[in-house]
């Protein structure tokens, strides 16, 4: 067995290399300095961010686009607290990520030393697991365990906190012996992939007898690489599919069985089909409140089959009739095998299908067309962008109205092309996430759809994009407002607009973008939209920002008011006379 004497800092970088890490995002500082030194000699590409939150979201974007764990490294104290938001974001959206934080030397822990904070304490409830490494010798094993935990079972973020003394070559405590034979030691961690055949048979029986079934598909399908299996199940059974915000692209929007996105801003057909169904087959989905609306009014007649790799999701929100613990791809493949062998049943679902197509005809996603004198329609901008970009374009979004319009009006026909912040709803997510995705896929086109509120939170990462040569494109839907908050105030607070107006004039996004090295344009007129997008698509040597000045009064429809049942879905005014 090969062994080698080295210091903990070098061992840490070597351990990352052994995990196959090709790129990491970060920003150095005092406590993590010794780990930055060996990066100079490493094969790992390091992207220097401008704010640690950016490093975390970039790692998330990278992970979402590739399925491989994103890696970020920052120093102690304020750097660690700055990356708390991405950790929580990754935790809620089950994104595999490993974050390494510097820490003050072990003997100084607990003394309120400079840039000391209780990083593992702070991040305990927003990581899948975290570690405080106390001995240099433990570094390789801990890194191995961190990657194992982050990427297996239900994926999630893992943080490794590393005191400076065990990585600093000038400190004897950093001496360690590298060996190639490092074993993980996690006696309490055994994610279960296999599924119980009994549950599969019970699920198949329910499916065979269902008159109004719906496949309710969540982000777990993407995490489990179950896209092909899902398609096979849908086509074998002829059952319609709804894809949640986290699962857009997991089933092609252009497929005839695709019913679209459910939830608070889902389309009428997806929401109503779930609501009226007699069997919901939840696959890697977690009955989030934004999907269910008022829980006791949600899909009242539906039996539930729930498949999840995280047993704690089974019965957490809605009690399932059949609960299947395990990997969702394994489960779907087993279900397909069972249904292929013993039949899919002979229930006539003609009436259900015609109800669905009736909803699709009467309640398509739609908005009032633009009229002369009006500001740009944000939905129209998304449609133009969708039509002018390659099919496999990766779209990331921030959080708010623009996110909902992007999820609604984009056509997702490929998995891993939609990257957004679902569970935590983190404003400012899109630009750094797009950078992470573009680093992962330099040959693909990556567009960030952003809002002006979001842009002001993380826009500075465009400096990173320029300097590191990561040419993303940003479609800024600028309505001068915190638009979603404005919509709530208009609809539910008697149009009393409290602290939601940003500014029409400042910042000047074109000048700001140019100052960060981007190509920048401003578009006010509908006639200029397509031309600007075409021009942006030609630019490949630097980031592009288009400041689209869109109408502030535009609202996202449909909408389930907060606390209301999904049956109370509000459709746009021009659809309100349609029979439901």
């Amino acid at each position, binding site marked *: 067995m090969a062994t080698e004497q080295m210091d903990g800092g070098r061992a840490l970088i070597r351990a990352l290399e052994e995990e196959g890490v090709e790129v990491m995002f970060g920003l150095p500082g005092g406590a993590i300095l010794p780990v930055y030194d060996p990066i100079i000699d490493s094969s790992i590409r390091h992207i220097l961010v401008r704010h640690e939150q950016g490093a975390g979201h970039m790692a998330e974007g990278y992970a979402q686009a590739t399925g491989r764990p994103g890696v970020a490294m920052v120093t102690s104290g304020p750097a660690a607290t700055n990356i708390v938001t991405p950790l929580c974001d990754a935790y809620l959206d089950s994104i595999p990520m490993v974050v390494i934080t510097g820490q003050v030397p072990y003997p100084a822990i607990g003394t309120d030393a400079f840039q000391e904070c209780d990083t*593992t*304490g702070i991040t*305990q*409830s927003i990581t*899948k*697991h975290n570690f*405080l490494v106390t001995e240099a010798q433990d570094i390789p094993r801990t890194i191995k365990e961190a990657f194992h*935990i982050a990427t297996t079972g239900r994926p999630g973020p893992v943080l490794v906190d590393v005191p400076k003394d065990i990585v600093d070559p000038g400190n004897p405590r950093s001496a360690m012996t590298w060996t190639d034979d490092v074993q993980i030691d*996690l*006696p*309490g*961690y055994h994610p279960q992939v296999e599924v119980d055949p009994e549950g599969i048979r019970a699920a198949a029986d329910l499916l065979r007898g269902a008159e109004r079934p719906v496949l309710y598909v969540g982000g777990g399908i993407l995490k489990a690489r179950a896209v092909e299996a899902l398609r096979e199940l849908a086509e074998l059974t002829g059952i319609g599919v709804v894809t949640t915000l986290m699962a857009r692209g997991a089933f092609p929007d252009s497929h005839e069985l695709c019913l679209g996105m459910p939830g608070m801003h889902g389309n009428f057909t997806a929401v109503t089909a779930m609501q009226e169904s007699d069997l919901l087959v939840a696959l890697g989905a977690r009955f989030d409140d934004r999907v269910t609306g008022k829980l006791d009014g949600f899909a009242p007649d539906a039996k539930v089959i729930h498949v999840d790799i*995280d*047993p*704690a999701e*089974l*019965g*957490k929100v809605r009690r399932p009739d059949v609960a299947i613990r395990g990997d969702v791809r394994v489960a779907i493949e087993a279900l397909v095998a069972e249904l292929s062998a013993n039949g899919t049943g002979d229930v006539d679902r003609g009436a259900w299908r015609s109800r669905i197509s009736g909803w699709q005809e009467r309640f398509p996603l739609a908005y009032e067309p633009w009229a002369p004198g009006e500001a740009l329609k944000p939905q129209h901008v998304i449609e133009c962008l969708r039509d002018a970009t390659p099919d496999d374009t990766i779209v990331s979004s921030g959080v708010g109205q623009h996110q909902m319009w992007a999820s609604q009006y984009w056509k997702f026909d490929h998995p891993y092309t939609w990257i957004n912040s679902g569970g935590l709803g983190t404003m400012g997510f899109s630009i750094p996430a797009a950078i992470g995705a573009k680093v992962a896929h330099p040959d693909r086109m990556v567009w960030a759809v952003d809002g002006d509120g979001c842009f002001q939170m993380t826009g500075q990462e465009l400096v990173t994009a320029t300097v590191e040569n990561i040419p993303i494109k940003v479609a800024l839907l600028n309505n001068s407002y915190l638009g979603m908050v404005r919509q709530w105030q208009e609809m539910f607070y008697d149009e009393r607009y409290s602290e939601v107006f940003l500014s029409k004039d400042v910042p000047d996004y074109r000048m700001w973008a140019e100052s960060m090295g981007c190509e920048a344009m401003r578009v006010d007129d509908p006639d200029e939209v397509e031309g600007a997008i075409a021009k942006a698509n030609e630019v490949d040597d630097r980031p592009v920002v288009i400041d689209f000045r869109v109408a502030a009064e535009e609202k996202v429809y449909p909408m389930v008011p907060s606390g209301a049942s999904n049956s109370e879905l509000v459709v746009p005014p021009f659809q309100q006379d349609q029979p439901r």
Partner: protein
Amino acid sequence: MNVPAPEYRYHTLVVKVENRSGVLARVASLFARRAFNIESLAVAPTDDERFSRITVVVDLESAPLDQVIKQLDKLVNVVEIRELHPGHAVERELMLVTVTAEPDRRDEIVEHLDRAGGKVLSVGTDHMMLSLVGPPGRVDDFEDLMRPFGIVELQRTGRVALASLDDVAD
């Protein structure tokens, strides 16, 4: 959320955890984070130095038992969880109590103590310090009996528990 029958409101879980620093904090923080109420919690090393044992009594009015167990099991340092069903567990708790005990009332206190199976640890001019080990219910009752005398200081350990012998798998 189904509310359990009153006699089953409290369930005892025996949680085997890795003996690492911070594990108790993880368990405690999970309970706080998920709004699970703890009635009592006791932790101690086991015969295997790699593991500790946490005996936790959960108030099921705050969350269904199934969720508590599954969420606990998600903690990487939690190795094993056993539910001790009420009636199938031997539960004990230790109480130390100092009560006001003027000389003319000591016989009365000692009488209660003997009936409960406790011990006198020390006797001062106007106080007695007592100990009692017993099932939590008996400890509750004894605490009630001592209250009228005047409790000066009291400390209970929280319960520890083992499965009844007929429930122990060979």
